[in-house]
């Protein structure tokens, strides 16, 4: 369920990311290809797939509900299969999941314009659509036309391809230039200004597009295409036999399954039953009650399935308690500090979450050198909380033990949207009483909670922003431009001139070194501001899979937020992020052995593993 919350929030968070106004003046792409471009590529990073991988077999996964469309964009296009559809629509470049440097996908080389906002790509002449034609520069020009078209009814895409990507130009059949809206560091340019081509020969854009293309199978550049659907039941993907990318450095030994069958299984409980019968290859078990209570029985005792725990190092969703500084009580920094010290997060971790989750220390964990690892979240400390509150004038205590100041009670509303988080909040509530703080829980449904918080009508918001991106973002969360007005993401209403100054510098800078220093300073200022109490993180993924699925020796990558994605998959199910899908393969002999052993009730050797390669601290 955590994941759902994150995804839900992401849907809302992304549009504002996209529409952030440009920092610099807008330039234009030159008419002719600039002669002084320095073309770069990257074929030196280590490969992260295993040369031992063999091709073949079928991977069976499940979808919670059948998608309402096979379109990648437009109404209802955000469904269980959209991460796969987005993944199969490869872009110009990907990110190496371990080094986080760009790697060739549909482009072989790239170069950065001298203006700091343009990037040029040399396209791979061998790349082909799954229905045959080669991928050319025209398909990228069409991307812009397509995404900006009113007929696709895709507001987010329209905004992104209008306000973030300003222009695309063709400089020959396999060279394009892309103009972005704001100067970025080279790595961020790939992430933000990279493009997925759209097959011009396939689409006919008119007012009927949404309806006519609802169930049409769009040609892809990736290694799988949809070969069979039965509405309401399943979707089948098959490997393209002589995929153009088969021998490319970073695609080799990957995408090993011949077929991928995604079956509709309505509830997680039923899916679990399928898994225990061996009809699904893997199952995620991040939630404590699943891992500790469900993952038992013969298939575990006899080791027919493998239990794993894999630590990754990725931007963590910023789960925390967001304090609204515009609230008269919370305007006092000492009260904010006191609240932070009165939240017994440690107790919740230990007694409710079985220490499976860890304390999130800052809002910006997992960004590598951009993260300030010296900051530690304020621990539960009643004496500190009491001192701060006494200083702030909340000295008296009422008959119920709650502090008073000029007759007003220190009573604060906590807005949250996840019913199963109530158990965590009641513990915090009881503990906070000890400091004389009353928390009133207000459980709202997701959309209402988000609305209240986005309109800045909350006091404390129990909330999470989805992680992602190459580096932390400060402007939309902490700049005074975004404070005191509804519908922005500065939900703490942080308004600090010194921070504004640094945030502006951070946004304008294209030097990675400078940005890193600024980010670390800004994170310290966010901590000092005290308007955010970081709560939990889950620094790993864990689950179980049947023995016949084989993983590379490294199991996954630094950026793997999931291990068992058979097809191309970008971190978080998005576009242009670290490329982590298709690393595992299928061992038919092992499957036979496992099933035979199960039939005869024989115990096999234990293959459970924990991989801490990418564990931070």
């Amino acid at each position, binding site marked *: 369920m955590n994941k759902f919350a994150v995804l839900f929030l992401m849907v809302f968070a992304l549009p504002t990311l996209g529409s952030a106004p440009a920092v610099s003046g807008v330039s234009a792409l030159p008419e002719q290809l600039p002669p002084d471009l320095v073309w770069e590529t990257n074929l030196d990073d280590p490969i992260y797939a295993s040369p031992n991988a063999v091709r073949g077999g079928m991977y069976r996964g499940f979808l919670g509900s059948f998608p309402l469309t096979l379109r990648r964009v437009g109404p209802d296009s955000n469904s269980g299969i959209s991460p796969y559809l987005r993944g199969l629509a490869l872009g110009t470049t990907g990110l190496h999941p371990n080094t986080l440097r760009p790697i060739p996908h549909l482009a072989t080389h790239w170069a950065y314009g001298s203006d700091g906002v343009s990037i040029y790509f040399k396209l791979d002449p061998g790349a082909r659509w799954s229905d045959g034609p080669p991928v050319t520069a025209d398909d990228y020009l069409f991307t812009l036309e397509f995404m900006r078209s009113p007929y696709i009814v895709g507001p987010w895409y329209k905004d992104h391809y209008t306000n973030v990507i300003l222009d695309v130009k063709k400089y020959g059949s396999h060279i394009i230039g892309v103009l972005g809206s704001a100067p970025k560091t080279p790595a961020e340019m790939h992430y933000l200004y990279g493009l997925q081509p759209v097959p011009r020969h396939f689409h006919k854009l008119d007012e009927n597009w949404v309806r006519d293309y609802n169930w049409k199978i769009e040609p892809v550049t990736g290694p799988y295409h949809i070969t069979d659907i039965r509405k309401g039941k399943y979707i089948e993907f098959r490997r393209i036999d002589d995929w153009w990318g088969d021998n490319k450095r970073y695609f080799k030994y990957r995408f090993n399954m011949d077929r991928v069958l995604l079956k509709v299984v309505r509830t997680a409980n039923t899916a679990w039953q399928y898994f225990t019968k061996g009809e699904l290859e893997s199952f995620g078990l991040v939630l*404590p*009650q699943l891992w*500790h*209570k469900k993952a038992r029985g013969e298939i575990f005792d006899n080791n027919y399935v493998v239990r794993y725990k894999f630590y990754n190092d990725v931007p963590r969703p910023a789960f925390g308690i967001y304090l609204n500084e515009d609230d008269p009580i919370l305007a006092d920094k000492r009260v904010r500090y006191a609240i932070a010290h009165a939240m017994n997060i440690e*107790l919740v971790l230990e*007694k*409710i979450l*079985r220490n499976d989750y860890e304390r999130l220390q800052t809002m910006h964990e997992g960004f590598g050198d951009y993260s300030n690892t010296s900051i530690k979240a304020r621990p539960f400390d*009643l004496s500190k909380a*009491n001192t701060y509150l006494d200083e702030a004038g909340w000295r008296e*205590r*009422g*008959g*119920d*033990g709650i502090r008073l100041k000029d007759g007003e009670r220190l009573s604060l509303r906590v807005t949250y949207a996840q*019913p*199963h988080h*109530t*158990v965590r*909040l*009641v*513990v915090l*509530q*009881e503990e906070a*009483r*000890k*400091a*004389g703080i009353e928390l*009133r*829980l*207000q*459980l*709202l*449904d997701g*959309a*209402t909670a988000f609305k209240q918080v986005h309109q800045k009508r909350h006091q404390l918001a129990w909330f999470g922003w989805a992680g992602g991106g190459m580096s932390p973002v400060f402007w939309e969360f902490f700049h005074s431009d975004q404070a005191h007005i509804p519908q922005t993401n500065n939900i703490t209403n942080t308004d600090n001139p010194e921070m504004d100054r640094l945030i502006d510098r951070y946004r304008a800078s294209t030097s990675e070194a400078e940005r890193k220093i600024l980010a670390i300073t800004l994170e310290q200022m966010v901590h000092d501001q005290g308007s955010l109490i970081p709560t939990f993180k889950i620094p790993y993924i864990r689950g179980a899979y049947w023995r016949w699925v084989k993983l590379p020796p490294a199991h996954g990558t630094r950026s793997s937020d999931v291990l068992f994605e058979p097809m191309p998959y970008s971190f978080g199910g998005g576009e242009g992020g670290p490329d982590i899908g298709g690393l595992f393969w299928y061992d038919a002999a092992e499957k036979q052995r496992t099933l035979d052993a199960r039939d005869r009730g024989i115990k096999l050797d234990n293959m459970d593993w924990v991989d801490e390669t990418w564990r931070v601290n």
Partner: protein
Amino acid sequence: MWQLNPLTLKRWHRFKSIRRGYYSYLALMALLLLALMAELLSNHRPLLIQYQDQIFLPTYGAILPGTTFGFDYEYETDYRELNARFKSGEIEGRMLMPPIPWGPLESDLVDDDFPPHAPSLARRHYLGTDGAGRDVLSRLLYGFRTAMGFSLTLLVATYSIGVAIGCIMGYVGGKFDLLFQRVIEIWSNVPFLYVIMIVASILPPGYWTLVLIMVFFEWTGITWYMRTATYKESSRDYVMAARALGASHSRIIFRHILPNSVSTLITFVPFAIAGGITSLTALDYLGFGLQPPAPSWGELLQQGTEDLDSAWIVSSVVGAMTLVLMLVTWIGEAVREAFDPRKFSYYE
């Protein structure tokens, strides 16, 4: 109010003679009484503390800060800690805990086990705990009080409105009657659950908002019966006679018609109470009900059905619901039988 006239007395005796209904009534009243004094039965505060020649009765009223007993904190005394010190002789004193030494909001987070904890006599969680370590029996008890309170408030409110409007419809008749019939028909076709969902998305549901919304939709039910009863009574000879004597409309309605149609109303009361309890439970279950951490049966039911491995949660709340609804239904049946006009009304 109405005196116990011979007819009412007869009905009461008749009700008493229906054993199942009468005992259910006694049992329900006993449960209600227990729920009303829930603080004395289930609480993290002791009933009685004897400390340094002083007697404390901490159950009701303000908290006793830890400093009262020589601790160094100002928040409410940790009575469990205090009791342990009493027992070890470290501090002189004694305390008497309630039969269920747990409050409905208190999490019991024991070492080397994670909530929900199974029922245990040793820790005095007679029905175990829920997912946050809160005592199930305690939450059932307090939840029952809330549900009954909710149900009775709802009953009084809907009946006041419904009876008034139904009565006027039947008594005035004519266009007023016609108009209200149509209004009520339209009203009762508004999908109630959708409205709750919409309202819940605008303002956070609380006890009184819920009562208000429910009253808003439930008052229509009783109007039909009241209208018919009034129609029937107002055409009777004694009403004519009263009118001929010059009695006012209000006198006729309140002195003559209402007392004579009360039997219709009474038979619906127990079922309306059962309806109120199930509604609140259903709303809580769906998450549109009371705000956490209020103890509620619906919330327990929701936790229980999500965690079937901890069977004590779901079985406790289902058991409690079945028991209460069964008692109420039995009472209802007995009331209906006792008030059956075929036994006590005489027609010419």
